[in-house]
């Protein structure tokens, strides 16, 4: 069962529809008291980082997510949901979930149009399973004004050039995120979501 975190994020429904179309069983998780069994978690998100963290906090979802990640449940953040995986965001000076090390700065280059909006290619830089069976460079749909700057370059799964290259897919085998919207990226996006559902497995803990 895939848990889709529902905290009022704008793209929750489109993520849900995409998962439904792929045929995976899923459940919406609206607050931290949810006790059902889940194998994977998806954190959608569009909008404002500070607001989103507030919404997650009010619903008890911050501690829920952290608990599940500790249990080894794989987590996929999408767009703002990915930015929240990091420690801090410049957007409203928000604190993130801190599941990955790094920050979320604004596109400060005055020559760039912000938001970065439209289809841009993601280069697979480490063969992570999210990009499995996709070309080395694949176009996905982006809409964002802030971007992930992971501290550890090992956490970079995919790179995209907008002005300079930035990390458009980040994480490891258990906590991962994509800046673009796979649920709005046609077939390639569906493939990526399918990869997550198919290959993201619970971490085996020794204790």
């Amino acid at each position, binding site marked *: 069962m895939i848990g889709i975190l529902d905290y009022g994020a*704008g*793209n929750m*429904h*489109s993520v849900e*529809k*995409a998962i439904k*179309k792929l045929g995976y069983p899923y459940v919406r998780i609206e607050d931290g008291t949810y006790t059902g069994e889940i194998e994977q978690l998806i954190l959608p998100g*569009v*909008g*404002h980082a500070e*607001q989103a963290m507030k919404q997650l906090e009010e619903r008890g979802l911050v501690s829920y997510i952290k608990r599940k990640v500790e249990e080894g449940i794989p987590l996929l953040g999408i767009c*703002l949901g990915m930015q929240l995986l990091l420690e801090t965001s410049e957007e409203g000076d928000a604190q993130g979930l801190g599941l990955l090390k790094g920050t979320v700065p604004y596109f400060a280059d005055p020559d760039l*149009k*912000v*938001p*970065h*909006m*439209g*289809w*841009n*290619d993601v280069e697979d830089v480490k063969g992570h399973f999210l990009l499995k069976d996709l070309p080395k460079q694949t*176009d996905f*749909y982006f*809409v*964002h*004004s802030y971007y992930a700057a992971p501290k550890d370059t090992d956490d970079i799964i995919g790179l995209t*050039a*907008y002005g300079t290259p930035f990390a458009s897919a980040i994480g490891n085998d258990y906590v991962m995120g994509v800046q673009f*919207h796979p*649920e*709005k*990226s*046609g*077939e390639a*996006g*569906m493939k990526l979501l399918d990869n997550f559902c198919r290959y993201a497995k619970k971490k085996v803990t020794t204790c």
Partner: protein
Amino acid sequence: MLKKRIVPAIDVLDDKAVKYVQFRNPTIIGDPAELGRKYAEDGADELIYLDTTASLKNQEVKYEWIRRVAEEVYIPFSVIGGVRTIEDFRLLLRAGADKVGVNSAAVLRPELLNEAAAIFGKQCVVLGLDAMPILSEDGSIERWEVYTHSGHENSGRDVLEWAQEAAYRGAGEIICTSIHKDGMKTGYDLELIKLLSENVSIPIIASGGAGELHHISEVFTEAKADAALVASMIHYGHYTIQEIKQHVKEHGIPMR
């Protein structure tokens, strides 16, 4: 590299996709969701639905077709038309729209852009801007002014000034339609689109006037648009989106 976008525009009346002839006489061309899916499969990068339903009593009908589009289309889509309040934004986004366009209401009350951006994020706030050229005595274009209410009323506002203000307030993107070019099939208003593309910090979607393939490539090469809106070119089957994209690619413009 960021790609330029080809964006089909679909007019909707009640819950049918329609095509207007000279802004009147709507003829049904299909179902909004089916048409959207067809264009998405043919390579559309995004879709814009222009809701031309005037009657408020058909609100429920509106959310129903939007929900169906969201079920069937896996690329982004905007809905524009009749949006006046934050509640309108909320309902359209809830129904499944990725972006909501606002036109006259933002001219009347620009704070709407700030409020919408603060609540939903500027990525889903689209400004619809209808422009008409103001001619000087010798007949050359002096500047463009913003028209509201489907191009019927002159707000007296300067287009560039309004576009910049809207971007500052919270619009994430601008669809700029030149009224005098719309439906003429003689090409986009390149001067106007260039003016905005070069002087406004958010993406510009050029609208109004596309009839031939070279109109699309020139709006990218000459006017620096971020996206090109196409309507009658594809609705009547004169061109497919793939043909348009192939042509644009041949002019060295990055396309998906």
